[in-house]
């Protein structure tokens, strides 16, 4: 048969769209058989396909579509139910249609194969069977006949039109005529054209080149300093950026284009494994670069397979566990910063940490002691190691040689990361973070010797200025740096690169995140951050792990792009070893990892004090003569309000403080009440860890001390001080409860521990403090408590594990738990609430925390 190539192309494109619609529709139908809208849509799609196939003379395709349509019409009119065998045969029909379409695409003609004919017979028989079944119910026959008539009529119309215009598109119009109301997507088609992807890729490359050329011109114009030239260059620059962004957008595709393939995969898989799975897709409209979408398809498929195979239990098991028979699998995508996050969330059995421990020892990944010491995160990360699989029997589906290590490698190749969180018995959450685009990435430019290197911004944590002689410590041949209590191994870029010749003094430490840990990279100089175009390196460099490509800089010179994971291989010894060495030397290394607070430093007389700035509502200066005496107490009138002022020297054993002409006042406000603390001088603010030393200076009102900038600094407990000043200050007039409620507090930082305890006691609670999760757990089992407040990052046992343990114990599974933190984050919040915590509060927010306690205890 001879027909226009273009029309055939149109047909193929439409047919493919139709297949996708059909697949989605059938899955939806199985879930909710009553969805008449879906049925109508399915029928319509199948009908168009049949019409078009007939037009091109694809007889087999037409017949398959015809019988399918017939079955669908019976479904639509409620003559038969969408039972499993019906849906199965329809899906099978879609598979054959798919096969035929792809064959036509390649060969421009229909395949003639026995298996297709066999299926056609099967389909036809099935249809016949249904027809008989329907005829047994005489009442409904009329409906069917009517439909047949209607159908024939419609088909006739289709054929007529086709003959008139020879235009496939019209099939749709006929259909629309028949099926009022008119859907608007026919008009929509005119605003979109189909473009070859290769063309877009080429356009993207050219845009990259244009950016480089622009950068060069900008540099030249800066040298020449001609006003008119500068202005033109600015315009050129702006347009280039805009164009680049627009072209990037053309390559963006909604992630739905791969998400939509999963309902079918999930259905087939669940069926094969005898499980019931309900798949929810969220954020299908999230856009990603085309090349990335292609590349994450396989890893995602693998993870979904795992979730169904290992995660979700069989319906019987679920019922026994008191879970709904149908397992839930959520595939969620959303944008966060410059990245896209994809989560795979199941409510299955979770990952058995004990099993991982056992396997880790068996397979020699860790020693027995290491396993016992390892955190849950470290253990979970073993899953990504080559040769580690937790499935006891390797099933046909999950274990086919490609393991999680391949998944991880593929995601890392895209500049992404993967993270597992799991709760035993409740489910597993896998979080993948990937960049929006691969071609152009923001990067930090650093130097070593005479050459520049680019570090992808996604790997960058922070920049620190260090004095290598003082700030870097050495264990064996490995140097490390302590960043807010965390040990970070340090590499010198010049040494890694073995660059000879003298380097400038390296004071710039770039803290990098490899996904598993942090490393520090000491470089000569740091330049600004730039958008760079990633270019691959030739085959000679494939075995050098520290590069991921090269880029052309604005001046036309090249810079190598550093691969952070590759770099981390150069770290000599593990952090664990460093820790061991230092434990032996009696130095305590671990504190609250990453936890920092901003302190306000101030002097009273000659003493230096610190207080978290978050507690202070305002700072101001007053003259000494503004201080009045009222009711035996010193007050000031501040903004039409009477504010009592407190002199620290009256409550703390300080050297005599000379009278001053003016004072700085720190205002402290809570529940509408304000007081002020007089101080001599405000020193400034400092972001630091809440580390303090207890002992020498500890007394009511002082939590501890620390040497800051060579001066002993006392950390004041403002709640205690105010209480000393006026014992009734915090007492809210409520009826005193008869029973005093007991609170268990787990917090490793003495500073926070002291402060939280004091304000809880001040509010009338009895508080027991512990320094980590393990201690808290022991205490919990040996005493009676009404509520638990816990920090997250703690040594021995962290807050996450504590919550899990508490929730797993039958006696305490309902005790209220409040998580306190200094790092607020939505994902952490979600995680702790998922684990079973009741609330999530910021440590320094006394008022909120007390409110929450009250709410949970009432």
């Amino acid at each position: 048969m001879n027909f226009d190539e273009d029309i055939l192309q149109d047909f193929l494109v439409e047919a493919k769209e139709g297949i996708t619609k059909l697949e989605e529709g059938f899955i939806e139908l199985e879930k909710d058989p009553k969805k008449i809208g879906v049925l109508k849509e399915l029928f319509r799609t199948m009908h168009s396909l049949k019409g078009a196939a007939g037009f091109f003379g694809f007889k087999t395709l037409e017949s398959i579509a015809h019988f399918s349509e017939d079955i669908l019409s019976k479904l639509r009119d409620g003559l038969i139910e969408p039972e499993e065998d019906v849906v199965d045969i329809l899906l099978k029909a879609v598979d054959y249609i798919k096969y035929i379409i792809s064959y036509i695409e390649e060969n421009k003609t229909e395949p003639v194969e026995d298996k297709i004919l066999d299926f056609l017979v099967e389909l036809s028989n099935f249809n016949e069977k249904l027809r008989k079944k329907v005829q047994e119910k005489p009442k409904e026959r009329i409906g069917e006949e009517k439909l047949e008539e209607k159908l024939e009529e419609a088909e006739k119309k289709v054929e007529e039109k086709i003959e008139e215009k020879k235009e496939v598109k019209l099939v749709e119009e006929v259909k629309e005529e028949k099926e009022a109301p008119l859907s608007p997507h026919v008009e929509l088609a005119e605003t979109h054209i189909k473009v070859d992807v290769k063309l877009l890729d080429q356009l993207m490359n050219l845009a990259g080149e244009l950016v480089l050329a622009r950068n060069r011109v900008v540099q030249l114009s800066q040298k020449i300093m001609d006003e008119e030239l500068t202005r033109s260059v600015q315009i050129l620059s702006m347009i280039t950026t805009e164009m680049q962004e627009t072209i990037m957008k053309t390559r963006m595709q909604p992630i739905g284009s791969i998400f939509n393939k999963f309902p079918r995969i999930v259905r087939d898989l669940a069926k094969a494994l005898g499980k019931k799975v309900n798949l929810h897709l969220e954020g299908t409209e999230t856009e990603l670069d085309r090349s990335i979408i292609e590349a994450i398809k396989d890893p995602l498929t693998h993870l979904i397979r795992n979730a169904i195979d290992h995660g979700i239990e069989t319906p019987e098991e679920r019922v026994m566990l008191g879970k709904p028979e149908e397992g839930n699998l959520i595939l969620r995508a959303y944008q966060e910063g410059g990245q896209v996050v994809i989560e795979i969330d199941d409510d299955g059995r979770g990952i058995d940490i004990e099993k991982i421990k056992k396997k880790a020892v068996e397979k020699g990944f860790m020693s027995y002691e290491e396993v016992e010491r390892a955190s849950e995160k470290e253990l979970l990360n073993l899953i990504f190691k080559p040769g580690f699989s937790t499935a006891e029997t390797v099933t046909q589906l999950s274990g086919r040689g490609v393991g999680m290590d391949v998944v991880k490698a593929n995601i890392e190749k895209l500049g992404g990361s993967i993270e597992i969180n799991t709760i035993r018995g409740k489910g597993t959450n896998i979080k993948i973070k990937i960049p929006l685009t691969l071609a152009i990435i923001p990067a930090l430019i650093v130097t070593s010797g005479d050459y520049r290197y680019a570090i992808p911004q996604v790997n960058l944590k922070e920049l620190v200025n260090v004095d290598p002689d003082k700030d870097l410590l050495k264990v064996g041949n490995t140097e490390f740096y302590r960043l807010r209590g965390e040990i970070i191994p340090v590499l010198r870029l010049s040494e890694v690169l073995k660059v000879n010749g003298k380097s400038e003094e390296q004071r710039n430490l770039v803290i990098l995140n490899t996904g598993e840990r942090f490393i520090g990279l000491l470089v000569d100089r740091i330049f600004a951050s730039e958008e760079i175009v990633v270019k691959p390196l030739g085959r000679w460099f494939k075995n050098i792990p520290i590069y991921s490509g090269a880029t052309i800089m604005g001046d036309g010179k090249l810079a190598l792009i550093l691969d952070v994971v590759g770099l981390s291989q150069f770290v000599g010894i593990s952090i664990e070893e460093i820790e061991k060495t230092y434990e032996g030397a009696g130095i305590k290394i671990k504190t609250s990892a990453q936890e920092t607070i901003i302190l306000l430093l101030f002097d009273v007389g000659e003493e230096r004090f610190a207080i978290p700035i978050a507690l202070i509502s305002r700072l101001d200066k007053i003259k000494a003569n503004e201080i009045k005496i009222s009711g035996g107490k010193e007050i000031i009138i501040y903004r039409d309000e009477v504010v009592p002022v407190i002199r620290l020297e009256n409550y703390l054993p300080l050297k005599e403080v000379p009278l001053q002409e003016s004072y700085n006042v720190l205002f402290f406000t809570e529940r509408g009440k304000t007081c002020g603390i007089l101080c001599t001088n405000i020193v400034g603010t400092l972001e630091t860890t809440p580390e303090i030393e207890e002992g020498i200076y500890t007394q009511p009102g002082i939590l501890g001390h620390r040497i800051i900038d060579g001066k002993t600094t006392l950390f004041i407990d403002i709640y205690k001080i105010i209480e000393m000043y006026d014992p009734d200050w915090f007492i809210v007039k409520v009826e005193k409860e008869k029973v005093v409620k007991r609170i268990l507090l787990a917090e490793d930082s003495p500073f926070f521990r002291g402060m939280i305890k004091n304000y809880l006691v001040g509010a009338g609670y009895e508080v027991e403090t512990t320094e980590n999760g393990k201690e808290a757990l022991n205490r919990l089992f040996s005493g009676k408590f009404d509520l638990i407040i816990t920090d997250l990052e703690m040594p021995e046992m962290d807050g996450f594990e504590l919550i899990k343990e508490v929730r797993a114990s039958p006696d305490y599974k309902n005790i209220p738990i409040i998580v306190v933190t200094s790092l607020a984050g939505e994902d952490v919040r979600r995680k702790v609430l998922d684990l079973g915590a009741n609330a999530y509060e910021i440590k320094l927010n006394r008022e909120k925390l007390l409110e929450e306690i009250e709410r949970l205890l009432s």
Partner: protein
Amino acid sequence: MELVKKENLEIVKKEDTSIKVADTITMVSFYIGDFLFGIPASQVMEINKEIDITPVPLSDEHILGIMNLRGQIVTVMDLAKKLKIDLKVTPKLNLIVKDEGESPISFVIEEIGEILEITPSKLEKVPDKLEGLSKEYIKNVYQLPDKLLLILDIEKIVKE
């Protein structure tokens, strides 16, 4: 009239190709020390003087680094080192060679020789007595009136 013209053209074209294929190959020649090397002109992309090499630390000894060829990243190889010729070459020219499916590669050389037409049938095996370099990368030799032309096995050089 037109038909005749077309025929003529075809004949000319035929003759042209037959000469090239059957009779001679165009070779680009260049010197490393006293050795004269040849590479088929069809494999050479261009020769230029823009020597601005960015070293790639940790790469093999015979890799000098990478360079920017109008937006393309080109790997730069020290051919003398690859061929184990004991000689320090001062890079003066880039001889840029195609590498199928990969980005091009540049051999830095000191001095370019003539463009030669050679007859394939006169190509000879690499003689045993040839010394002072690694013979595995030489495909054939070709006797010129005054010198021996060493034909490089580009594929082998590029792939190993």
